[in-house]
């Protein structure tokens, strides 16, 4: 079984609380230790387009999960809609997993990528 401690959903709560109460400090702007990047490399959370979820719904999800201001959430939504995908966050693997999980809880098609995949 996993050694990742508490359930995934429980671990997401503080993540989302941080996003929701600090809209001026979006997740991408949080400084991460360079040494961790050196070991793990950056992981990208990518949202893929789907024909079902409405634009308004996707904007709401981005605002909720990442604490994005509306213009930024809308920009990512349009990227998903027009280009089929949008990188919505990048950073350490464990946090990327939590964001991907949160997006999947909202039924968005979210995947993780690393440079190794290309």
């Amino acid at each position, binding site marked *: 079984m996993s050694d990742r401690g508490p359930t995934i959903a429980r671990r997401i709560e503080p993540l989302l609380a941080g996003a929701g109460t600090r809209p001026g400090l979006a997740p991408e702007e949080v400084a991460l230790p360079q040494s961790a990047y050196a070991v793990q490399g950056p992981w990208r959370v990518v949202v893929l387009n789907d024909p*079902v979820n409405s634009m308004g719904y996707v904007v709401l999800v981005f*605002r909720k999960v990442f604490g994005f201001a509306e213009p930024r959430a809308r920009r990512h939504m349009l990227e998903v809609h027009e280009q089929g995908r949008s990188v919505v966050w990048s950073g350490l693997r464990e946090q990327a997993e939590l964001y991907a999980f949160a997006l*999947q*809880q909202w039924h968005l098609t979210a995947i993780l990528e690393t440079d190794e995949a290309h």
Partner: protein
Amino acid sequence: MKRIEVKLSLPVVAPLLDLMKASSDVLEAQIAAPITLDDIDADFREEWRAELLAGQQEELHALMGLFNSDFFINGVVAFDEDNAEIIVRACSALRLRLRRHDLSVLEDEQLESGGVDLETLPAALQKPFMCYVFLGTIQELIIQHLDGAILRGPVGDAEPSEDYGADADDFDSDKD
């Protein structure tokens, strides 16, 4: 607490509930979105999938719970700060299921543009499509009127740092 009461047309909505229930039953054991967990550690995938599924089940129970015996008396469903998020998510799960299973013959462009004429659809597709549109309408209503509540989180969470509030405290909508 902000609350939306929506009065629905029973003759229109009641026939859709069987399909919603059947789709909901399938989603008891199946994640609605076409996700892959290839990048997740193998020993973590089952836990991941199980938690997504448990959340989805909770959402769908909440949605189907709106259509209880009271609904069949007055035709009213109510959304508020406590159920807005879970209902919006449930609608998404059901719409994904309907699209992949019942409406798979339709093109993505048709669904995204809204360019589907109910009258010209084959009979077998009409009910799933009506269901799909109905669930989308519920989502739109909630997002329009309760997005602030969803962004703030459940009552008792941290105070919002931004005013997302809408003006309408109460909303009645008759759908024919």
